[in-house]
Structures are given as structure tokens and as C-alpha cells.
């Protein structure tokens, strides 16, 4: 067996792009290269990183989910509503908020898994349906009121302004946001599940070939239940981090961002047809997407150019991955289409 590399070719390539891009921005605007920018990007990419870890797991299992932003919004919105309307003081706790949001995420995730598995149709179509459904259920039955900065429970704003530790530099003190904690936990947990547990191996196996996975005794339904529920749980975490970050809750937030999260995972080398993907790659993908989002302005381009570059990167990265596979298949006279 070939040894798994810590950093593979795609990732070296991405690291190269990040360095080149940063060098370019620094040349134009020297103020860019600072700890402050780094921490800023780490902080602002927390939500995307958490969701990207989840979507990577789903994609590796051979599925896809576009409903997770709706799930995150649902979790965040309902949690905010419960916390603002409750009179019990013990409810005003960050742990409770996370638990509530994760719980709702898992429920929706399980529903996704059941529908995707039982109906045997492209997961994209089904989760697009559930995305509309979840969003509709929330706005129709639960509420579509906007929570402003004043109405947001105090725990969220305290969580957002808390700092893990401070770094003293020449220009002053910079704090590392406490958002690093959920991100680190999620990344470590995902890494552990994917590489150190039987479930992780089952997920890879299912993504490579469902029939082969079934023959070695893997129950695809159980794997799907786990994968979509895990995505739902991470969406729940991302939702709470999101409310804390923006300190307000609009009923139409987040939904629509799912494609840029999927883009981040894909740019990071996750193969959309399943069975391949690495956490480091996905993380680098998130970094690139956020670098583009935050720094195009330094280069004199407006933020309207984001999707242009992300789309172009996506097209290049999916065609390279698919073309390599095609060449390999053709060499062995394997025809998939």
C-alpha cells in the first residue's frame, strides 16, 4: 500500500497559490501582512471551516448536501428565539445553546439521510428540496422576525468578544478569538472519525463503491445516517458561532452560502464523486475562498469579483481531478461513460 502523504500534490499547489497571492497583495498593500489580518481571516472563516469539515465527510461518503445552511440557520434562529423568550436563568448558557442547536441539526440530518437512502435519487435534488422545506418551516411556523444586536442573548456576544490569549506585537495587542475552540474541536473530531475509527473507513469505502462496501459487510444506511447527522450537528455548531459572530439574526441569513462552502471543499481536493478528500485540503480551500473574499479589495477589485475567481478555480480543480481519473481509467480500458 502506498503511504498516505501528510501534504499531497493538490495541497502543495494550494499552499503555493496562497503564498503567491499573499505576496501579491503585500506588494500592493504592505499593511496586509500582519498578525491582525491572519487572526481576522481565522475568525471570519470559523463558520465556513466548521461547515466545510462536515460537507467534506458527506462528499467522501459519495453524497452531497445543500441543505446544511438552512439547517444551521434553523438551529441558530430557534436557539436564539428560545434563549430570548425563556425566563429560566440556567438556560442562558453557551453549552445549552450549542446542545439545542446541535440537537435540531441532528434531527434534520437524520431526516435527510432517511430520504436520500430510501428514495434512491440524486442527493442534490433531495437536499435542495429539504433546504426549501427547512427554510420554509422556520419562516412560516416559527417566525421571520429579525433579532438585532440588542435582542441577541448576552451569552453570544460574550462568546464573540472573549479572547483565548493575547499576542503582544510592536503595533499593540492582538487577541485570538475564542472561535478557535469550536473550530479546533470540530477539526480534531473529524480527523479522528475519518482516520481512526471503523466508521471513517466505512465512509471512505461507501464513497468509493457502494456495492463493494456492502459486500464487505458495511451497512450503507447506517453510514448515511451517521454522515448526514454529523453534517447536521456541525451545521448546528456553525449556526451558533454564526450568531455570535454577526451579533444579529436575520431570517434570510446563511442560506445561499452553501455553494461557496462546497466550493471550498472541492478546491481543496475533495472529489465530488466520493471516496477521496482530506481535511487539510478542505481547510486550505476555505482559506483561499476567505482570502479572496477579504482581500480582493486590496488589489483594487471590488468584492463582486469573488465568485468569478472562485468559479474559475473550481472549474480548473474539478477538470484536473476528473481528467486524471479519465486518463487512468482509459489506460486500463475502464469506461464509465
Amino acid at each position: 500500500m502506498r503511504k498516505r502523504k501528510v501534504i499531497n500534490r493538490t495541497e502543495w499547489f494550494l499552499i503555493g497559490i496562497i503564498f503567491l497571492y499573499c505576496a501579491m497583495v503585500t506588494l500592493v498593500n504592505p499593511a496586509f501582512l500582519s498578525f491582525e489580518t491572519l487572526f481576522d481571516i481565522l475568525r471570519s472563516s470559523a463558520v465556513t471551516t466548521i461547515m466545510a469539515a462536515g460537507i467534506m465527510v458527506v462528499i467522501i461518503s459519495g453524497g452531497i448536501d445543500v441543505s446544511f445552511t438552512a439547517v444551521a440557520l434553523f438551529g441558530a434562529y430557534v436557539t436564539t428565539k428560545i434563549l430570548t423568550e425563556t425566563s429560566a436563568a440556567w438556560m442562558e448558557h453557551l453549552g445549552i445553546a450549542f446542545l439545542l442547536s446541535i440537537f435540531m441539526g441532528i434531527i434534520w440530518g437524520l431526516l435527510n439521510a432517511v430520504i436520500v437512502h430510501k428514495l434512491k435519487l440524486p442527493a442534490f435534488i433531495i437536499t435542495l428540496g429539504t433546504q426549501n422545506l427547512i427554510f420554509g418551516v422556520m419562516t412560516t411556523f416559527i417566525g421571520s422576525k429579525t433579532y438585532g444586536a440588542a435582542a441577541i442573548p448576552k451569552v453570544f456576544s460574550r462568546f464573540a468578544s472573549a479572547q483565548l490569549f493575547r499576542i503582544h506585537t510592536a503595533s499593540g495587542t492582538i487577541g485570538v478569538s475564542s472561535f478557535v475552540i469550536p473550530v479546533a474541536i470540530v477539526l480534531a473530531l473529524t480527523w479522528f472519525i475519518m482516520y481512526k475509527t471503523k466508521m471513517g473507513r466505512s465512509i471512505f469505502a461507501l464513497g468509493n463503491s457502494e456495492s463493494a462496501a456492502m459486500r464487505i459487510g458495511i451497512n450503507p444506511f447506517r453510514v448515511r445516517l451517521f454522515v448526514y447527522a454529523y453534517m447536521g450537528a456541525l451545521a448546528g455548531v456553525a449556526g451558533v458561532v454564526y450568531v455570535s459572530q454577526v451579533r444579529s439574526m436575520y431570517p434570510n441569513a446563511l442560506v445561499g452560502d452553501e455553494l461557496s462552502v462546497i466550493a471550498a471543499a472541492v478546491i481543496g481536493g475533495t472529489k465530488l464523486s466520493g471516496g477521496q478528500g482530506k481535511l487539510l485540503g478542505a481547510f486550505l480551500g476555505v482559506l483561499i475562498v476567505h482570502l479572496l473574499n477579504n482581500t480582493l479589495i486590496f488589489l483594487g477589485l471590488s468584492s463582486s469579483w469573488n465568485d468569478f475567481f472562485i468559479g474559475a478555480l473550481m472549474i480548473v480543480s474539478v477538470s484536473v481531478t476528473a481528467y486524471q481519473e479519465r486518463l487512468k481509467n482509459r489506460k486500463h480500458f475502464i469506461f464509465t461513460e
Partner: protein
Amino acid sequence: MDRIKKWAAKDSTLSALFVIFFVTAVSLRLVVGKTMYTPERLMLMGFQIPEFGLIALGMTFSFLLGGIDLSLVANANLSGIIGAYILTGIWMPGLSPEMSIVCGIVSALAAAVICGSLNGILIAKFSVPPMIATLSTMTFYNGVAMALTGGESIIGFPKAFTRFSTATLLGIPVLFVLFAIITAALGFLLSATGVGRKVYLYGENPVASRFSAIHNERLIIGIFTQNGFLAGLSGLAIVSRVTTAKVGYGDAYLVQAMLVAIIGGVSPSGGKGKISGVIIAIIIIQVLSSAFTIWQLSPYNRKLIWGFVLIFVIFMNHIIGLYGQRKEKTLKEK
């Protein structure tokens, strides 16, 4: 009566769709009342059907091939915007109104065809799975449109162009007539020509079609280019009706188009489905959508309903499929 029975037995999906159509149409008439089918209302439906009908036809073809085309709406938007730049004289100023309309329409369609063929090339030549290829190009086309406009809307179209969307021919909207002609042509292409046979064979089993001397790559590029063309027409229709061009118009059409194709009996796994079913599905969705407008439902409520209907229809198809399998099995056992 016997003849009806025979006819219904011949194509069960189509007859089921007819029943669904009548039930929806009649019950909406009963619930909403007289305002449901006034001549003006019907006219309005005729104006709106081409816009998402064209997208739905494109979706149908991509489903028949066993793929999906997510970039249709983004493509329609981008080509509409490119057409708008020329129509309003921001690009190529100094053309006479007639010339600018011709140039605008031609360049919008050219852009749409290029976008469509890029999808085809990615899928056929690079073996990118259709969903992934069109997901990437969807982001890219939206990105190009966004980079061009910066999110602003383009206004100031020539009157002759905006009048086109409300023009009528013998009391029927011109756009609707155009749509009917295109639908008939595509129906003919699918049911009566070699290309149609190839589409069905490819959708059923692409490897078999490759080894049956069918030029798979040429077929895919051709069909996705045609989808691009349909998206371009839809983009022009949208721009002409709303008289502005902006990124994000018609975003809801993507879900609606999938819904139409699935209700119309087109299987997303490829090889099954007919244009006739899709036409009835388009009308059903348009009638429902008009009723929503009368009830003044918010976009939130609409999302809930479309999402629910999509899942429900997929679920029903699954149940019907299971029933069909069981019937086949008992026949074999006999």
C-alpha cells in the same frame, strides 16, 4: 369509454398527469373563485410560461441524459445581462435601435451557446460528472455576471424590445407561440429522430451507447449547447418582461424546473420521460404559481410549498415504482 381506457393504459404516467392537472385546475377554480381564470390571468400565465418553461425543457434534456444542469439559470442571467449591455447602448454605443436589438439578441444567444458548450466540453472531454461540472460553471457564470455588473441593475432598454414581452399574435402572447414552436421541435427531436433515440440510450446506459457506435462526446456537447441556447432565450424573455437586468433574477426557477421535470415523469437517473409529460407539468406549476400570486403568499411560504411538493412527488414516484416492480415480479413468477 373503452377507447379512453385503452388510451390510459397505453401511457399511465401521462394519463395520471392529466388527472392531476384537472384536479388542480378545477379545485383551484373552486377555492379561488372566478378570479382564477379571467382572460387577463390566462394571458399573464402565457407571458410567464416561456421563461421557466425553457429552463424546464433544458433540465428535462439533462435529466434524460442521466445528468443535471444546474447552470441553466445562471446562464440565462449572464446572457440576459450581456444582451442588456448592448441593448441599452453601454457596449457598442451609436447603433440604431433596430441594429442594437438585433446585435443584443444575437450576442446574448452567442454567449449562452458558448456557456452551454463549455458545460458540454467539461462533461464530455474531461469526464467531469454533470452535477459537478454545472455546479462549478454555475458559480463561474454568476461570478462573471457579478463582476460585469457589480450587482447593479441595468436599465434603459429600447421600447421595441420591452414591448416584445407583452406583444400578442391573434390574442396569444408572441413569446408563448415561440415557446410552443420550440417545444414541438424538441418533442419531435426526442420522439422521431435518431438524436432522440441516442439521448434515451445514453441516459439508460452510456457505456452501451459508446459501444453501439454512438459518438457519446459529440452527443453530450450538442445537447448541453442546446440547453445553453434555451437558457439564453429564457434570459432574454426575463429581461424583456422585467425591463431591467440584474444578477439573481429567476433564482427560484432552478427548483421549479427540477420540480417540473420530475412531476412530468422524467427520471433524474436518465433514459425515461417524454416532452408531453413535461408540458402538462409546466402548466400545473404555472397554475399553482398564479394561485400563490392571488393569495399573495410570501416567498417564504412559497419555498415551503415548493420544497414540500418536490419531496412529496419524489416519494410518490418511489411508491409507484415499488408497486410496478412488485407487479413485474408476480408476472414473472406466474
